[in-house]
């Protein structure tokens, strides 16, 4: 508020110095009638409606603004159950994978397998100057290099602060 008052006090309603020198008795003032210099107080404002959206959404999910139920992402479901014939075919898994010699396992003795063997290269494997980095694939094997630095300055003199 003090700032408003301070700024407001800077505005004075004085006549410009040039105005005092004008030979008023012999002058007419011509003003370009189309120039807009303000001063028409009190006119009603015209409201312009916003135009239609101009950009299409980047994904297929519509915004859910103000909807009582909002989903963070589309519904996720398990794959459909295979048919009875698919379930009882010992030569092929319901996923379609061919099986040569099916091995039966007791329902209560099924153990989660170790990490799936995907056939991907092993982490750290090298090829053509690149190394296999899990999550990113073949990347440039960079190596490293350092620089030793020393110079002036007191290690016991505290300049900055940390907290």
């Amino acid at each position, binding site marked *: 508020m003090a*700032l408003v008052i301070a*700024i407001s006090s*800077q505005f004075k*309603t004085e006549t*410009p110095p040039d105005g005092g020198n*004008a030979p008023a008795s012999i*002058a007419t003032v011509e*003003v*370009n009638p*189309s*120039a*807009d*210099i*303000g*001063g028409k107080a009190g006119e009603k*404002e*015209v409201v*312009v409606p916003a135009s*239609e*959206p*101009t*950009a299409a959404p*980047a*994904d297929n*999910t519509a*915004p*859910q*603004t*103000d909807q*009582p*139920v*909002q989903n*963070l992402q589309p519904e996720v479901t398990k794959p459909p159950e295979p048919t009875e014939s698919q379930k*009882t075919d010992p030569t092929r*898994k*319901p996923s379609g994978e061919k099986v040569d010699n*099916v091995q039966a*396992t007791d329902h209560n003795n*099924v153990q989660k397998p170790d990490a799936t063997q995907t056939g991907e290269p*092993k982490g750290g494997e090298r090829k053509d100057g690149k*190394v296999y*980095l*899990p*999550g990113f694939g073949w990347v440039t094997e*960079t*190596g*490293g*290099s*350092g*620089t*030793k630095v*020393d*110079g002036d*300055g007191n*290690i016991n003199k*505290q*300049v*900055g*602060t*940390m907290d």
Partner: protein
Amino acid sequence: MKRTLSIFIVLVLLLTALLPLTAYAEGEGNIDNGSGSMGSGTSENFWSPGDEGVRITVVRASDHAVVTIPVDFTNKHPDNIQAHFGKVSKISYTNGFSLTPSMQQYTYVNPAQAVPRIISSGSGNANIDDIKRYFCSEYTLMRIADVTGFNYDTLINGDYKILLEPVAYMTFQGVRIAVTANEAALYDQQLDGGLRSKMVSLSHKNLPLAMFLETPDLGYPAWSGSRTAAASNADIISSLGLGIIRFSEAEPPQVSGYDYTYRVNTQVITSVTVSGGQADPDHPVTARFTIGGQTYTVNNIYYPESDSQLVWVRWTTPSTPQTMTIHVSVTGRGRASQGTITANIVDLSGHEPPNPVADDRNDSYTQPAVPNNPQKTSATWGVWRPWWHAYWVWHSTGEDSGYWCDHGWWEVEWNTCTASLSASTSVVPDAKNPTASAKTMKSGYGINQTVTANVSTNQSSAVTAAQTAVTYFPEFRYQSYWRLLERTGGGLGTQFEFARNRYSTYNRRTHFTPIWMPDGSYTPYTYLMDCWTPQGMLSMNLADSVTISGNLWSDWHIAPVKP
């Protein structure tokens, strides 16, 4: 014989002292909080105590801009680093920089005065006071100035701060990598938890907890969570693995007491972090936000064990200013980071400049500096998406009969989402100005402004357009009076202009420059905001100028009265 045994014992002791201690890491417990054993591990995943460094970045205090390429200080010679993610600071990642393997050699700096231990381990704890003394010392700051090429006196004059981040040199899945705590969390997201599953005690505990803030600064909060337990990726990215050297006061804490400040009649997004257990379609978690008597239910929230998911609701603020309390509850095994959120709803309208008068004067005017508010032009978040990992097992029901049974499980994968705000503004003399030429005009006439904003994102359902643009003017020292621009476009690409000016003879979308404005540059400043994402609001500083030359009085001329 006794003499031989003594020599043997001495040799064993010497070898024990000289050989580096290698800590193998595999899963939980390989490194405790600095006081226990290192556990066991594999030769593909390990870290040796002392294999560490500190990433150092000079940051401008006023707007948090990164002003130097980060450098890594270390006592080691990690020439065997095979992969790293470049010299990128936490601030750059916060601003939306994505984790990308570097193709450049990993470079490091060895100060002659050794860096104190940074990361605690079973072989010894780091001492935070030693770390502070070292990095706040004249010697170290001079070395930082030397290697960054930054003038030392400027570095310590109070206009800049130094961001520190712990760096670990570790072997993960057989690859020797260099990562900051922030990069380790981002890499773990990329691997859907793969780093955490192998190196949790380092990557999610001792590395991120090596440094955190006690006083909020540079937009990062003080850490009030556990100092001994492994942290989630979200907590590491938002709050851990950083220290700040300053040469002036810390930024004043926000004393508003509000979690959010929104404008009236605005589409906004309110978020909390939900964690606890694993959430998948078989173990659903639902969040409920109660806002102004309306309850919004958010479904399909998924995340893996030991991690979290940002959960948000998108709603429209009321038309009148008020303080709103938002209650958040979570069903299922999850819990929300906040049960209560306070939102301040404000109205920016009604502060238009007063009617300009032709004989206004301001002889003491000096041109003020154009404001430079903190801006955030991009945001990154993510959504854990579950998928069913089928595991078909054959069960026998007889000699030649049986059936396939699915013993599969839910896996979750991390999908990174980003939003980026871009905008420009143009200020020109009003078309009704009779003597303007291009961007030059006489004072006293009006100007027009257009602001064009666009948001690019890969999850438009979670991002609003920039909905508010406020323009401030130099004659009011960019305070006191402003114009709330009118949005003239919709969707994620929007345009703004001045509202029609009630003092304009022709009802123009204009702002009148004061007639006393001295010759020179006239620069309205615009703060573009209310582009909401689950990671908060995007905003941008915008400015453009016209040149004032002369004033409106000179377009009036004096002539003799015709006889």
